[in-house]
């Protein structure tokens, strides 16, 4: 919806749809990463601490019934690092301190398996420490020998921090880059859409509406249905406006001849005198009547083509309508010396629009009167057969040859040679349009003489 502020722009939508989940993913990756990093840091540092523990433990021996050891410098060298962590150790035999820091947290030797180092966190001198401890069984010494080595956690923490910072930087770069690249990526993705818009807008600028399919070049598969839908809409518009264009062109074309007559006769009336002027005025009156009829019929045709689209069908009493039409055209028929009759005594009712049925009958009877001979008749017959209700209008005129019947329904087609009655050529076109609105069909049928028109309303 244009101007609908509740609908965010496509860019915003994509930004939310992409960057949101990406952030969430970053948080999850961060959490998992933190756990993994902590684990890896602990394991690697423990391995070093365990290495130092092993190096010390190996030097523990029994010499003349006494437990001795030789603290190797290399063991402490292993533990040196940039953070200058403190290192503590304690070697005890049966709970008695042999060497080291006496107050270092001592384990219960019973919980320690022989030669399997154990690691634990503890507090010592107000610092967090990591202790590696192992129990050794020495020959001829029945008391347990427990070797412990511990270090403060500064190096572990520093390592952990460095790795976490690297991870976070990586994540920030990823999310940031995605957000930044979204704009150009979106622009690039939307370029076919812009091209499509350009193709549509180009139509605006042309003086004459152009309803040929859009020329937007190759489109991505997502946009193709849109372009196709648009092309279909254009085609519909084309046929709709084409109808209007043809209609107005035909109508103006049809008016030019009586207008020419008017201009010529007005000129003659101005110049002439007496009898010439009276003659010209008669011609003018005739041309005006012709134009009037043409305009009336054009309006009727326009009405027939748009009417009934939305209005609900009503029950129409055909006999009543036929009576009304005959009453209206009676004077015209009298003047032409044509008799109008309504035959049969059935009273069929069909679903439809009274106006349209009135229009159909008016035009058919009017044609019947115009293209008739003096003393002829125009008969209207109403009949109900198995599948349909029929409205039959027959006249005593010259008839329409079988080969010309299709053409007779075309607009402005007037059959017959010059000198036949002046008609607009719209009558049957109006009938056909109106009948189509009512789902009725109109046919010209063979007859011994005259024209027989059958309007067939399908049974409901």
């Amino acid at each position, binding site marked *: 919806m244009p101007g609908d502020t509740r609908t965010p722009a496509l860019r915003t939508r994509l930004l939310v749809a992409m960057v949101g989940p990406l952030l969430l993913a970053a948080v999850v990756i961060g959490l998992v990463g933190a756990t993994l990093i902590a684990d890896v840091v602990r394991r690697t540092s423990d391995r070093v601490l365990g290495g130092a523990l092993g190096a010390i433990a190996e030097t523990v021996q029994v010499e003349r019934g006494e437990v001795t050891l030789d603290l190797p410098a290399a063991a402490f060298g292993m533990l040196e690092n940039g953070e200058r962590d403190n290192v503590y150790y304690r070697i005890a035999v049966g709970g008695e301190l042999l060497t080291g820091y006496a107050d270092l947290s001592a384990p219960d030797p019973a919980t320690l398996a022989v030669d399997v180092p154990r690691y634990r966190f503890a507090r010592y001198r107000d610092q967090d420490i990591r202790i590696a401890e192992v129990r050794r069984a020495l020959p001829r010494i029945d008391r347990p020998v427990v070797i412990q080595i511990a270090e403060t956690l500064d190096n572990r923490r520093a390592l952990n921090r460095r790795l976490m910072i690297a991870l976070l930087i990586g994540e920030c770069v990823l999310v940031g880059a995605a957000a930044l690249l979204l704009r150009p990526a979106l622009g690039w993705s939307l370029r076919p859409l812009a091209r499509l818009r350009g193709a549509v807008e180009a139509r605006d600028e042309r003086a004459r509406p152009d309803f040929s399919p859009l020329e937007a070049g190759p489109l991505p598969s997502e946009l193709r249905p849109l372009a196709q839908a648009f092309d279909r809409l254009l085609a519909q518009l084309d046929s709709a406006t084409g109808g209007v264009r043809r209609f107005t062109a035909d109508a103006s074309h049809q008016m030019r001849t*009586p207008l020419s*007559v008017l*201009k010529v006769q007005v000129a003659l009336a101005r110049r002439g005198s007496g009898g010439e002027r009276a003659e010209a005025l008669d*011609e003018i009156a005739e041309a005006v009547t012709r134009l009037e009829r043409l305009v009336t019929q054009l309006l009727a045709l326009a009405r027939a083509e748009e009417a009934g689209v939305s209005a609900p069908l009503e029950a129409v009493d055909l006999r009543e309508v036929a009576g009304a039409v005959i009453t209206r055209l009676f004077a015209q028929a009298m003047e032409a010396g044509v008799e109008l009759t309504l035959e049969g005594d059935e009273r069929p009712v069909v679903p439809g629009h009274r106006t349209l049925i009135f229009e159909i009958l008016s035009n058919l009877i009017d044609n019947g009167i115009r293209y008739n001979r003096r003393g002829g008749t125009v008969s209207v017959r109403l009949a109900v057969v198995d599948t349909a209700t029929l409205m039959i209008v027959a006249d005593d005129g010259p008839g329409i040859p079988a080969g010309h019947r299709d053409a007779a329904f075309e607009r402005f087609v007037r059959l017959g040679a010059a000198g036949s009655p002046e008609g607009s050529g719209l009558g049957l076109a109006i009938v056909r349009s109106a009948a189509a609105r009512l789902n009725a069909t109109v046919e010209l049928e063979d007859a011994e003489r005259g024209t027989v028109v059958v309007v067939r309303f399908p049974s409901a």
Partner: protein
Amino acid sequence: MRILMIEDDAALARGIAALLRAGGHAVDHVATGRDALAVVAGEPYAVVILDVGLPDIDGFTVLARLRERGDRVPVLMLTARDALDDRVRGLDLGADDYLRKPFEPEELEARVRALGRRRGGDPLPVLGVGTLTINRSSGEAKVGDRTLDLRRRERTVLEALATRAGRVVPRELLIGEVFGFDEPVGGNAIEVHVTRLRGKLAPDGPEIRTVRGVGYMLDAG
């Protein structure tokens, strides 16, 4: 001038015929292309007015057939259509002029006169023979400063002779050019007009000579 009008609309045909006859022309009318093609060959028409929309064969086809036969009669096309293509097509097929409905009657008359002059090979609106001058646009004829009071037919006869001044104009050609085919032509119809003309031209105007058994000739002066 003798004019052939091909127009299927009876009311318009009546109007144009009345208009042109009032201007001193002899007008024949046919309503179909076929009739037009049959009639145009036999008669000395000065101008043909041809409607494009005809019930049998359209005006363009009529025009094309005329020109195929080598007929050079000036043709003025009348059409209810607007399209430029139509105008171009008509002119390219050999039409001499083009008028769109609804037209101004004065314009139709003027264009018909202009086409008629061109047919005679002389587009000048004023024709001079010695002391006689004929304005072919207004229809006014003068000898010196004296304006001749001519009837419609007399003017047509005089113009027909004046465009061929110094040459003998056969009597049949004169009749063909002056009378339409639905006008009754008496045995001495032309003589009557010529006699009256002589009276009006005398004494200072050019003389109309009778070439016995052949026709008439206006002295070139």
